[in-house]
């Protein structure tokens, strides 16, 4: 089958979604399909540029492909007789993030754009299949657009992740941004009572947020306890840090999926600390059994961090339960691809 994968690109930024699409491409090729990956550049602007992008996505042509699989807004607006949407997320700023600190301010001009975005999403009903990566996304789609969808959980390339030693640090790998809330983890370090350490690693594109975190570390003399790596970390570093940590952290606000980081932690037999408002991650993590689901406050998170550090045996046991859980779920590429190409 000739398959086009259509995703968005925020130039020079690579996150979980990009990794997942690359893995899907690889898996499709292994199964003998001819696959091409197209990516539409996203503007850092909610306004005219976004409207232009929506229109452009409708005008691009994929006639020679038997199947087009799309993932994000507005890449999934492309028109094709056999378009399958595996939705990572909508343009959340126009939905549940609207008029919040992570979204867009409500004003008459933005209202117009919001309507354009919501109208573009109505075309989702014309898809051959409409999947989402988590209940969080499916529920949002139903709530805001009254469109039904089916959850098709994702999985990354997990082969290299496995259990290692139980270390003394918590590992928070992710693109560093306010919506991922690394600041909560760093602020929690001010309240911990144990000697637990924190490693935050990833690229921060917003210098103000980077400065906020650095300033907090400096102000509270946390340099000895917080390793802050604002840079792209290699796969090898990722495996090493993850397999030898005490536990992992993923505190993103209303994350659409359970997060690649959470899955990598589970495969590495590590418990995960998350928050009650972290969206898809709480579909994966069971509080006190495979991790901790905390209030989104530094104090609450600090308590969970201390608990893991002070009873490492229990932490290791939770990690094993996490690994058992992800294996029990039996999320396989064979199953995923069969459903995408049905």
């Amino acid at each position, binding site marked *: 089958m000739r398959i*086009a994968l259509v995703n968005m690109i925020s130039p020079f930024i690579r996150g979980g979604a990009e990794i997942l699409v690359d893995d899907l491409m690889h898996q499709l090729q292994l199964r003998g399909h001819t696959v091409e990956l*197209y990516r*539409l550049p996203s*503007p*850092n602007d909610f306004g005219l540029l976004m409207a232009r992008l929506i229109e452009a996505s409708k005008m*691009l*042509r994929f*006639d*020679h492909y038997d199947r087009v699989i799309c993932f994000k807004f507005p890449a999934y607006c492309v028109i094709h007789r056999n378009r399958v949407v595996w939705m990572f997320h909508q343009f959340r700023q126009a939905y549940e993030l609207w008029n919040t600190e992570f979204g867009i301010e409500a004003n008459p001009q933005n209202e117009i754009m919001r309507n354009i975005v919501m109208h573009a999403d109505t075309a989702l009903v014309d898809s051959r299949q409409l999947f989402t990566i988590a209940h969080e996304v499916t529920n949002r789609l139903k709530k805001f657009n009254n469109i039904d969808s089916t959850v098709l959980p994702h999985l990354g390339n997990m082969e290299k992740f496995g259990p290692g030693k139980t270390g003394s640090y918590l590992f928070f790998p992710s693109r560093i941004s306010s919506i991922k809330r690394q600041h909560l983890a760093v602020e929690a370090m001010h309240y911990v009572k144990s000697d637990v350490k924190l490693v935050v690693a990833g690229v921060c594109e917003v210098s103000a947020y980077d400065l906020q975190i650095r300033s907090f570390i400096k102000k509270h003399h946390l340099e000895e306890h917080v390793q802050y790596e604002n840079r792209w970390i290699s796969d090898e570093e990722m495996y090493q840090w993850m397999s030898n940590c005490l536990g992992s952290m993923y505190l993103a606000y209303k994350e659409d999926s359970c997060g690649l980081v959470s899955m990598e932690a589970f495969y590495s037999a590590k418990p995960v600390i998350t928050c009650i408002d972290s969206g898809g991650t709480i579909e994966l993590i069971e509080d006190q059994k495979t991790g901790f689901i905390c209030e989104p406050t530094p104090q609450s998170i600090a308590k969970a961090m201390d608990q893991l550090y002070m009873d490492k045996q229990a932490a290791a046991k939770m990690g094993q339960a996490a690994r058992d859980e992800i294996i029990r779920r039996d999320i396989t590429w064979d199953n995923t691809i069969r459903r995408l190409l049905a």
Partner: protein
Amino acid sequence: MKILIAGALAPYSNRQEKALCEAVEQHYRSQQHTTDLFYLPWEPDFYGAHEQILAYRLLTVYNECDILITVGYPAFALQHPRKYAFLFDFFPAFHTQYGTDYGFKDQFFRVDQDQKMVKNLHQAEKVCLGEARKVFVASSTLQENLQSLACQAERFSFTPTLAKGEPSQVEKGSILVESYLEPLDRIDLLLQAAALMKDKHPIAIMIPASDPQYQNALYERIARLQLQKRVSVYERAVTLTDLQDCSGALSLRRFSEYVPAYVSYALAMGIHCVVPKDGGALCSLDGQSENIFGVSAEEQSIAKSLQRLPLYSTKRKASADSLNADLPKLLEGLVK
């Protein structure tokens, strides 16, 4: 420096564009620049061309990078104040071959209306190319063709690396041709010539990718001319192993705006190549090498030339590095 590379991929025929995008990305990354690469689709449909070019115009990258490098038609329609465009060809079906059997020619060929569309298309191309700081083209043929759009292009040279390949299944001593089976490749003409040949040279037609309809037509044609024993079709690209074992290479592409990689490699390896006198960039090779046989585009002449190809000609090793030696210097010049 932040460098973004954008490639346009047409169905079935984009190997060299992809290879160049990857080579450019690799080069700048090795020079510690921040680079990223993305592809956009391009459907070579005459009536849909304007809309697709407009889609490229509407996409926004100008806030995202310091330099935009576009590869292929119509990636140059993307907007950026520091844009460099690389082209292997300029969709001859809409330009030099428009209205001929080899280019766009609608069944109901609505001359007046289509002429207006061509004019508008050329105007759009002119605007988009005019924005580029520099336009680089793969041949002097394309350089000349672009002059009609008032575009002063510079030459660049790039040959995609050929895969080494498994031990070849192609019969030793075969004459090799690689094609996406576009009408311009004139594979029909090759088959007619093959039918006339007295010596029974085997011919291997290599198809990296193609429209299934064209492929079916090819198989039917081979059967009709009863050439099944002499003409073999392989659905893959030419490899270095194939070239090591062949007796010659051939391309009958009409008014070609680039030299296919397998022809460049064949010549570098000292293999004899047959090219048509109306072959554009291919034709410009004639006279540059004693291994080139320039032929008229008619079956008798082609058959005669193919028979002259010596079996197992002397070969020497080719390296992609030597073929692309000028590219790094050119790319360095763009970031200064």
